[in-house]
């Protein structure tokens, strides 16, 4: 073996890795926001009275949840341009990840909606709110709070999923790690540092989310 650890090469490019981590976080944040909107709409569609809405929403969720993310990423990156939709690789990835997130968040919101006591909506209607006002001012805020822990977990997995952007050369953490690996041959150091950065980031996000969760919790 005779391999001696030397982190010098990795430290030299540490700012690259950091910028990659930052991009990954940014992609995850944008996608979870977009995904929340998609998920909310699809969750209400799933509970809707109309069969068509329910069908469309459940097809979307089933299809996306059973397809590998990498296939979705490659599909939008290589196929959409052929259909005349020209997006940069970052945009293409963000759109894909948002749609992907939307399917998982639909399930989260659907569960949270089902868990709400019936009386809430009815109490809203009873004080004279319209159906929509009751949704916006009562149902959704309470549901969002209940869904918060699950949202947090989804955010962490989305953040880890941004590593797949490296497959279409989006310059995030995994992309740079591979580059440094190839350029410097400091294989062990590179991957150790990269995965530690992911682990640390996930840990910090989780800690932050727990903090917010406590602040958000409705006191009983």
């Amino acid at each position, binding site marked *: 073996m005779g391999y001696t650890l030397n982190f010098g090469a990795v430290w030299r490019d540490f700012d690259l890795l950091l910028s990659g981590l930052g991009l990954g976080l940014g992609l995850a944040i944008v996608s979870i926001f977009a995904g929340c909107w998609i998920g909310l709409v699809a969750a209400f569609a799933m509970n809707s009275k109309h069969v068509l809405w329910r069908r469309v929403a459940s097809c979307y969720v089933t299809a996306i949840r059973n397809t*590998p993310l990498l296939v979705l990423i490659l599909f939008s990156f290589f196929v959409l341009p*052929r259909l005349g939709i020209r997006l940069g690789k970052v945009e293409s990835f963000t759109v894909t990840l948002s749609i992907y997130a939307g399917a998982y968040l639909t399930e989260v919101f659907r569960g949270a909606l089902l868990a709400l006591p019936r009386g809430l909506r009815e109490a809203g209607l009873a004080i004279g709110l319209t159906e929509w006002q009751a949704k916006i001012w009562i149902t959704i805020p309470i549901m969002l709070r209940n869904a918060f822990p699950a949202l947090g977990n989804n955010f962490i997995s989305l953040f880890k999923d941004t590593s797949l952007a*490296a497959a279409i050369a989006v310059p995030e953490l*995994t992309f740079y790690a591979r580059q440094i690996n190839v350029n410097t041959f400091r294989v062990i150091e590179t991957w150790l540092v990269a995965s530690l950065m*992911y682990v640390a980031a996930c840990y910090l996000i989780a800690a932050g989310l727990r903090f917010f969760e406590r602040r958000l919790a409705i006191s009983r």
Partner: protein
Amino acid sequence: MVEPGTFLYELWVSRWAILDGFGTTVLVSMLAIVLGTILGTLVGLVLVYGGWVSRFLVRIYVDFVRGTPVFVLVLASFYLLSQIGIQLTAFQAGLFALVVFCSTHVGENLRGALQSLPRGQTEAAKAIGLTFPQIFVYVLAPQALRQALPAWINTATEMVKASTLLSVIGVAELLLVSRQIISRNFMSLEFYFFAGLIYFLIDYAIERAGKAVERRVALPS
């Protein structure tokens, strides 16, 4: 009837390559699930019943692996294992990463299931004079496995999806084969869609089968 240049024609031309890729996907997923489940069972048992040193070490292993994206695990094991003197093919290195990934999911799942069982179950079993191995086999395991089943099925579908990552390190599984075909005939829409459809069908089948098993083992109430 089927003219050259149509999707069906291209599909027919590359049928053996696709079948090969499909076989590799199924093989690597199955091996990952089986080996990962075996390793994961050990992980779960140590997390629940281990002494504090082994529990601590396994905890670090689990948290580290779960904090790292699978893709990074795959790349790292591909580049890294050879560096430390373990010569593996891309298939083996990729499989190794998937097994590690799977083991942490199975382990956490099993730990959760075992720890969620009410203490009264163990106590009632002790009270009739069963020894610990008997309590585990007859009382705890059957209940814990039932509880862990839905999440385990989910992990299995995750493994099929994660197997696509092996295409990046050159394992000729379904996705890489599809990409190779596309690079020849430029039918990206058709072949990505086709690959996606196959993955969908595999995962959907696992999910359905899993639901059927869940119903079979469900306790009457």
